[in-house]
């Protein structure tokens, strides 16, 4: 098993204000799998993603990647772990405002000993002609494509996507989803995507539904659809 999540629990606050966000999550994800975490706001999906990404820590439980326990990692090793294994895509892109498109992608490439070719990637992402523009000269879709480029240029094992289409219109969203799908297929990258859009679940290999901090449904999607045909 590539990614194994065992009884993850996480709460915020204390005393009367204690909110249990994750109440014992158990999950196993295979290498190369496209996994979608679905659920309403407050269901704990982003928190789970952040814990998988090593930018938040669980109160209890284990996460194992290639049988390596994340709980045993100190901050330094967590950095290395993120560096080697993870790519991150956020809803609000989080591009570096004073770096160009190419340079923002190079920010990711710099972290890898075997990065993808930046020019190829720029072509693939349809950003080549915008490569010398700054983020504020781009549309939302172009910014998100740049963010995807930054995440995948280091060829991560896992791509974590936190509502990647949350700030985009329908067509741009589909374009971005298609791109993520292509990455999964082309590079075999494991994808874990958080979304509240049920339709997006149809393009995944595995659909996990969360509610109130618990997994309500964990199913393999046997009728997987291409991003192109998704409708919502």
């Amino acid at each position, binding site marked *: 098993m590539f990614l194994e999540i065992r009884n993850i629990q996480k709460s915020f606050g204390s005393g009367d204000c204690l909110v249990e966000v994750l109440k014992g999550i158990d999950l196993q994800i295979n290498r190369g799998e496209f996994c979608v975490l679905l659920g309403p706001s407050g269901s704990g999906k982003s928190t789970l993603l952040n814990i998988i*990404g090593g930018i938040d820590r669980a109160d209890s439980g284990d996460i194992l990647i290639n049988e390596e326990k994340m709980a045993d990692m100190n901050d330094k090793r967590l950095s290395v772990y993120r560096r080697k294994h993870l790519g991150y895509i956020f809803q609000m892109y989080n591009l570096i405002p*004073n*770096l160009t498109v190419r340079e923002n992608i*190079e920010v990711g490439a710099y*972290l890898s000993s075997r990065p993808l070719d930046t020019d190829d990637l720029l072509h693939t992402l349809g950003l080549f002609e915008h490569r010398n523009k700054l983020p504020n000269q781009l549309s939302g879709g172009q910014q998100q494509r740049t963010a995807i480029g930054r995440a995948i240029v280091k060829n991560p094992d896992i791509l974590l996507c936190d509502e990647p289409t949350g700030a985009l219109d329908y067509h741009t969203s589909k374009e971005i989803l298609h791109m993520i799908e292509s990455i999964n297929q082309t590079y075999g990258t494991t994808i874990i995507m958080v979304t509240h859009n049920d339709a997006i679940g149809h393009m995944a290999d595995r659909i996990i539904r969360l509610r109130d901090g618990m997994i309500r449904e964990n199913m393999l999607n046997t009728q997987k659809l291409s991003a192109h045909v998704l409708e919502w």
Partner: protein
Amino acid sequence: MKNPLNKRFPRELRSDFGKYFVIFFLLVSTIGFVSGFLVADHSLLTAYNEGFEKYNIEDGNFTVHSKLTNYERTSIEKHGVRIYDNYYIECPLANGSTLRIFSERRDVNQVCLMDGAMPGKPGEIAIDRMYAVNNQLKIGDTIHSDSYTWKITGLVALSDYSCLFQDNNDSMFDALQFGVAIVTPDGFTALGKKNLTYCYSWKYLDSPADDQEASVMAEDLMKSINHIVSLTDFIPLYQNQAIQFTGEDMGGDRAMITILLYIVMLIITFVFGITISHTIESESTVIGTLLASGYTKQELIRHYMTLPLLVTIIAALIGNIIGYTFMKNVCANMYYGSYSLPTYQTLWNPQAFFLTTIIPVLLMFLINDITLRRKLSLSPLKFLRKDLSRKKQKNTLHLNHRIPFMTRFRARIIFQNSSNYIVLMCGILFANLLLIFGMSLPAVLHNYQETISDNLLCNYQYLLQVPVSMMSMENDTELEDISYADLLHASFLEYSLTTANPDAEKFSAYSLNTTSNPYRTDEILLYGIAKHSKYIDLDLSDHDVFISSAYAEKYGLNEGDTIRLKEPYEDTFYRFRITGIYRYEGGLCVFMNQKALNQTLNLEEDAFSGYFSDSEITDLPAGYVGSVITLDDLTKISRQLDQSMGSMMYIVDGFAIMIFVVLIYLLSKIIIEKNSQSISIAKILGYHTMEISSLYIMSTSVLVILFLLLSLPLETICMEWIFRLYLYIGMSGWITFSVPPIVFLKMFSLGVGTYAIVAMLEFWKIKKIPMDEALKNVE
């Protein structure tokens, strides 16, 4: 692969040019000035120290009434010294100053020719360079006394007069009214012997190892000479202010400038700390993303530290270049404006380099490292959420809803930026401290001169120079037989030395030393005042002891306190209980009934040692008049301080204004940048730029004005304390520090004016913040 983040540096520099420029400018000016000062100080001090050997400076000098006979000279030289003639004549010049003229020197106290040529024939003269500058004299000019005219051929520095003290007992030197000069031996002979002072310099055959040994050797020598010939003056090297003062003052200046550098560095460090914190806050999501992507904390620390450190290093290098070139000359000229120093060679000063370059860079590195390390220890998630507070959210400060909304809004801005405002307050306090120093010192000195003129005891005080032993000696005792100690410390005469001047009033005077000041010994002049004195408005009983207000202020003395004074060279102590304070700023004095003073000192009841007079006394035998104290003498200290520090005051003022501008600009800029999103939202909501400015600029304005007002009394107290300490530790005499109200007005206006310019820049900045700023950054 090169770190792509490096490409941000030039862009970051361009986009935040204002911030980096003012920091760069402040660093360059501070480092340039301090480095220039330290290099000049070090080079000149080295030249000064080397001068002792290079110009063969004497180990001391003594003065006698008449020329030493060969026998006397040989007898003195048997005591381990070599004697050199160092005769001089003092000539009052037509310009009102006094010139002490020496014959050409070959063996000791040699002369450094600064410009022109040494005199070649009678009628030619080389004068002290600084005296020439102060009196607007140049080579080729002629100077006149009553009987002589000289043509100036050169400007010189006399190695035994690096500081132009006319009298070693003077509290300050006076390079305006007193100068030294060199003429040819023939030219000197032509001046005659009428006003000739028989001064002899000595050099030990075996030099003393230190001041302590020098002191013992000098005391022994003094006793020995006194047995051979009657001394009128005896000044060993370690006590010679004309030689020693320069070196001591330069050392003190270096300490002061170093402290100034550290204070400025501390302020810059705080500014950098705040700037970095602001950068991290504004880059929060970028940092979060980079950390989430796998960038290590160390990589980010390196990244965010590079630019400020680079700016500091470049500023330090340029500051050093400016320091070694332009500023060194400016600072050297400041010294040349105060002292008669010989020529110097610029010397590489490792200490200056360490202080002005290594320390600032190190300081900057440390503060950046600590701030960044602390800030970046938060989790990537916190950065992504822009939640950089370490503490749990405290309860929101409750502001009464009856307070107008805009006022509450401003209050919130102030609370939000409290750390910035604290640094701003410290900066304003420091800048104003410099400003109050720069602006009030000339006023204080001017005020001192006026006060002295207003409450002068009399226009002329004649101190007669006849020893106490003369009163108890047998009638056939020769003047030459009187000991030096008697001559130096007391001068009492019997009724025989009288004047026909109706203004003249006898008084007793005796000088004792203070015992309570651990840093220096002050000479206290005890006046014995005649009954019903027309000069001292006191009706003193036999038990009354009044002290001058200057004495009371300097030592914090009050009525009822007891003072303890001692004989300068003996272990005899005197205690006096103060019964009153007499308003007199001209010196550290004690006023007693003449009879009581004479009794205290075991002298005859009607013994006296001088005359007070409002008109000049002309019928006293010249040889008996030790010194005449006039207004000119009393104000010498203020005149010289004015002369030597005047040019520095403008630099201090400029420096203060610069710090003021830089701090206000940087901190208010950060406050506005921090709030750019809120400003943008306010714009979207329909606020006008003027309204927004009234929120963000007004809150800073209110605080700036508050700090300015608050700083005035604080600075006055602080400056009074510093000034008091400076005089207490380092100077004889006393000057009351009182800031005229006009200085406060000037300081406040300057502060407000400077702020107004910065506020205009900030208004423009607010106007430029686009409305989509808020939309872009919404998380």
